[in-house]
């Protein structure tokens, strides 16, 4: 694959990843949020595949397949089974506009602070590292500002996608065993949180994290 093609695929995928993360802070419908997650997973897989093809690295291409399967298939499927209909009313602590603004500020912040991490590397992949950090920060932002269990799960997945992105952009991903183990761990965490969400509906009559007030000092 030619260098310019790789570079343009990487740039596009990074753009899509960032855009879907920012839109997550604004979406209110659960089904829509899960669809955004599918797009985000596909963009991540495309990024990995482009890197693999440009290096002629078969292992990386296989990882791209796993990423597509888990991040664009299994994870959204698990989440989609919980997320029916609209997310809880007044789910967010902040208004959608403020949510978007927060995401924008965090993205700029990520670009401002990530410069040393690139170490002077000017390639297309290195220039995209701040976008990965931005995804991590936006994931945090969603976790902080959303109060329904499903939205918090979404925030966690966005955070994790950001970390995966940084791993692929800085060093073509981690060693295969670690990569697979980490993917399995994240999948299991989401499955557990989904099961707890169902149980929360039984014990608390809803899935708003605001209702979790029993334990305190």
């Amino acid at each position, binding site marked *: 694959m030619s260098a310019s093609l790789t570079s343009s695929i990487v740039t596009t995928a990074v753009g899509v990843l960032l855009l879907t993360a920012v839109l997550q802070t604004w979406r209110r419908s659960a089904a829509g949020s899960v669809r955004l997650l599918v797009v985000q997973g596909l963009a991540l897989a495309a990024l990995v595949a482009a890197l693999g093809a440009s290096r002629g690295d078969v292992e990386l291409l296989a990882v791209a397949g796993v990423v597509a399967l888990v991040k664009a298939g299994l994870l959204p499927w698990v989440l989609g089974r919980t997320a029916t209909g609209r997310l809880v009313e007044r789910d967010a602590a902040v208004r959608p506009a403020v949510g978007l603004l927060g995401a924008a500020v965090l993205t700029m912040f990520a670009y401002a602070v990530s410069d040393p991490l690139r170490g002077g590397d000017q390639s297309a992949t290195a220039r995209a590292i701040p976008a990965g950090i931005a995804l991590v920060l936006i994931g945090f932002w969603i976790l902080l500002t959303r109060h329904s269990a499903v939205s918090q799960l979404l925030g966690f997945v966005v955070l994790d996608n950001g970390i995966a992105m940084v791993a692929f952009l800085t060093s073509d991903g981690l060693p295969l065993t670690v990569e697979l183990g*980490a993917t399995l761990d994240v999948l299991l965490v989401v499955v557990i949180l989904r099961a707890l969400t169902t149980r929360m509906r039984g014990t608390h009559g809803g899935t708003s994290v605001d209702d*979790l007030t029993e*334990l305190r000092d």
Partner: protein
Amino acid sequence: MVVLLWLPVLFPAVMGAFVAWRHRDAYARFVPLAVAVVILACGVALVARGRVVTSSLLRADAGASYVLLCIGAVSVVALWGGLSRKSLGGRGEALVCAFLAAMSLAVLADNLGVMWVAIEATTIATAFLVGHAGTRGATEAAWKYVVLGSVGVAIAFLGIVLVYASSRAGGTPTLSWVALTSGNIALSPHLARAGVALAVLGFATKAGLAPMHSWLPDAHSQAPAPVSGLMSGVLLSVAMYAILRVQAVGAAHIGVGLVHGLLLTFGLLSLTVAAFLTLTQRDYKRLLAYSSIEHMGIIALGVGSGTTLGLAAALLHMLGHGVVKAAMFVVAGRVLNITGSTRIADVTGLLKRRPDLGWPFLVGSAALLGFPPFVTFFTEVAILVALAEAGLWWAAGAAALLLLVTFVGIARQVLGMTVGAPAPVPDSGDHRLVEDPPSRRRTAPVALALGVGAAMSFLAVVLVPVLTAAAAALGVAR
């Protein structure tokens, strides 16, 4: 001797799978205890051999062997003391086995990435154990535990990713701890600094250090007694061990100032949180949980002092606190059985009413408060001395003051529960009463644990070389 490396990881995994597949009440409840005994035996054998054992992904040096021994000892106390007549239904036992396998793997992995995967797996294995009761409180605790635990550990993962990226500067990137600390490869300093800081921050969440501690009292107070004991005694220690491993990588490349600064801050904050929340605590299981935060803070200060004395004392404190705390959670679980309430105000006159529970509770609390002859007294003094030796007089003074406040808080609560005349049992308790008559068989593990906690103080001849070797292997104090 490679079998000593694989046994603590594979045996629990296989037994866990077996008990999940073929569950019979007759033996299921003994399986976790058998697994714990095997881990302890492997830990003792590895420590006794005192040589580095390596096999592909796994590696046991003096540090890893010692921490494996801690895992075994604490698990035996928690699971033997917590043996109840009813099994946890097969799935519970399987999860405890998976938890033990994951902790052994985290300690024995040479690869920082594999260590991370194993630590994240401990969160997964314990999630349903924390929520086991199925009540509102248990569900809430499990949710907070999994969200905070996995987000915290995700930060550590980002840190490890950055360390991996930084090792690309030296040719082939690697996550092998031996390679990263060997000094043969160069890390790019900016990435390594960011990576080490994030990894320490993330694992500190899992170690229950303030200000990332908020999941800990909830999870510890809601989980079944043996699981609370395991989490308090070993899960926190394994997370601390991960911090030690990351610290060694930092020490080899960017100096130790950053990590030690973070640990001193977390340590003093943890002591502060524990001091003030034990003073006003109304729930005795939460009281024990805050005491765990206090002890993790002490260990963090010991490591943060940067001296060999501080590190060795911190490692010994890990074992001493773990064994005693596991016994205390077991006793607390039995107190809950007979009173049906976790409120401190509902428990009175334990010494008169149930001396078989009252005495261990009182003596165990004394051990947690650092009374001589318990080993915690000597390690706490050693850590304060280490801080002063390192020129951190202010930290030593602040720590001593905060320990004193915690002392007052815990002593007042525990004396209120044990000494004095028993008041009638209120029936407002929100937990089911479980028949739990005095039994020598069930008191034995607790008595043994407290005895070990005291005897350790006099075993310097045996312990000093082990601790020195472990501190040297964890390779910071130089």
